[in-house]
């Protein structure tokens, strides 16, 4: 009696091959991901001093002009809520850009990976050519930081020609039905002002429009990962809060009280 060799059926072999292929592709995918994902260079963030804000909304206007956003699309707004018992004479003004959370709840819900957090500097962006306009990210954002572009236009602007937005350095000419119309839009920390190395230049004027404009110097922008930056120093010296900490979103925008 000869020894029986274990017989592998064609079905088993195909099954094993399939399992092997899946495992290999997962490993390969992760390896490619690890090799191509740029290392974190910066952690851009803002420290907003509510004591210095006078509620002039220059930041809202500067943002709209810089990014050429249409009606209904705001990358920052200023809320003015009276303190309890304080009445309307001394409200708390709060300018509210996107907080570029370290754990952004808007990112995992996107069905097509159109919105993501940039690995190099933590800015949460939207790929206008991929976004399908389902608006799930708007529902998921706890801070109301995202707008849907309904295709509305400012009537008085038509004399100046079609607006061109420098966003994402894409310089898209606004058309009635092309992206970003029908997309979700949000604050990008004016990343189109970064140079090719991803650096801003405050003295050269390449600085987020709201922070650059603020007449009361209430909006401080910088690298939260750099202990010597102005924002890091303010966080060490002053009492700062972040909104809705309990949600675990780790916002990159702080408010000084």
């Amino acid at each position, binding site marked *: 009696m000869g020894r029986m060799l274990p017989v592998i059926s064609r079905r088993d072999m195909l099954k094993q091959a399939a399992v092997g292929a899946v495992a290999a592709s997962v490993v390969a995918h992760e390896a490619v991901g690890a090799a191509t994902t740029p290392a974190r260079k910066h952690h851009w963030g803002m420290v907003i001093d509510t004591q210095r804000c006078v509620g002039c909304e220059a930041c809202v206007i500067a943002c709209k002009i810089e990014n050429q956003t249409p009606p209904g*699309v705001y990358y920052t707004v200023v809320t003015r809520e009276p303190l309890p018992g304080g009445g309307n004479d001394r409200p708390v003004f709060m300018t509210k850009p996107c907080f570029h959370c370290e754990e952004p709840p808007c990112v995992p819900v996107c069905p097509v990976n159109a919105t993501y957090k940039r690995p190099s500097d933590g800015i949460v962006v939207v790929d206008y050519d991929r976004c399908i306009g389902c608006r799930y990210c708007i529902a998921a954002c706890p801070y109301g930081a995202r707008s849907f572009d309904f295709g509305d236009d400012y009537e008085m602007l038509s004399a100046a020609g079609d607006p061109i937005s420098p966003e994402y350095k894409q310089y898209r000419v606004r058309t009635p039905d092309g992206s970003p119309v029908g997309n979700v839009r949000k604050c990008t920390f004016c990343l189109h002002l970064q140079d090719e190395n991803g650096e801003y230049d405050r003295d050269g004027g390449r600085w987020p429009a709201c922070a650059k404009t603020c007449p009361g110097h209430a909006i401080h922008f910088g690298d939260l990962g750099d202990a010597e930056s102005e924002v890091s120093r303010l966080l060490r010296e002053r009492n700062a809060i972040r909104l809705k900490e309990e949600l675990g979103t780790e916002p990159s925008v702080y408010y000084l009280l």
Partner: protein
Amino acid sequence: MTLKRAFWAVGLFGLIPLGMGLYIRLTTGHADANYGSLVPWGLWVAQYVYFIGLSAGAFLLSSLVYVFGVKRFEPIGRLAVFAAIVSLLLALFTIWMDLGHLERFWHVFIYPNFASPMAWMIWLYTTYFILLVAEFWLLMRRDLVVARSLAGWRSFVARIAALGARNDSDESLAADMRKVKVLATIGVPLAIMFHGGVGALFGVLASRPYWNSGLFPIIFLVSALASGGALLTVASAIFQEGWREHRQMVLDLGKIVLGLLLLDVLFQLSEILVGVYGADPGYVASLRLAVGGPHWYVFWIVQVGIGLLVPVAILASPLGRDPRLVPVACAAVVVGFIGVRLNIVVPGLAVEEIAGLSRAVDDPRYQTNYFPSAFEWLITVGIGGLGLLMFGIGEVFLPLSRHLPARQNA
């Protein structure tokens, strides 16, 4: 007969608003819609959840026949699967209109993000749709073969739809039913996952306290079963005069709907109780908006009055033994659930996430008070009419409630 004629008239009439709505949607996009950036989802999303619930509910009830072999519901088996297909198509059409870029729907297949509950949902209901169509074809296959011998255009339609199948023996029917059982069995967990997934889509959002609960996906399932069961009862009573021919079945369906409806109420009460005592300001604000906001009537009249009190008064009383009143009660449930869906979607969104957000800028897109625009209603009413038409066409072309007798030539 007059009921059926009314059915057709309403359905055909619905094509007019649908055409107008589609024209506006394709030429001006979302510009004429009333949702905005604070309330990003409105009537269409509620309508989508509504139809997808009807689909999952009808399909799960068909499993009573095809998986669990409950003989007394046999007459609604095929109707249930057909209703599931029609409702799913209506749901997908509605949510397609809601996309900012409807030409990019295929992105969900080539760039899927499986961390997103929306992506699970899309992939699951794509699988579910393929399964539904395959199951329905198997259920109809022998009748299509038999119908080839009918006269005129029916034969022509049957010849195409049969896809070349010619065997009309009883053995082939038994073989079909075995395959149906396999598909239906796979379909049950699939339908639970995909409709639970729709609930999860809302439930996972910590940003919206009104939705953010572990009970949410479960409530979606129960309410799907209740509304889907009610739709089936109405459909079986209208088509082939089910209320006369299958009297006992209609009464039994009424009891099932009553049970599911009460279970749904129990879950909702639990949700409200925990929410109110938990006193999360966002939750309480949303609940207040639903029960006492500007659109309080959606809750008290549509959801509670029509959707709950009327059907319970009929189904839980001696009136529930009248096979003509049971479909009326179920029709009330079907209508009332429109209110349920609206009251999930809109109040959950229509509260400020940050105090003062809706007053920060004077802009109609930054408002929390949402009421659908005429354009949104056009699409909604039109899609409803389209649904009635699809049911009507099914009624004409397909023997939905009974198998045709095999030819007497063997």
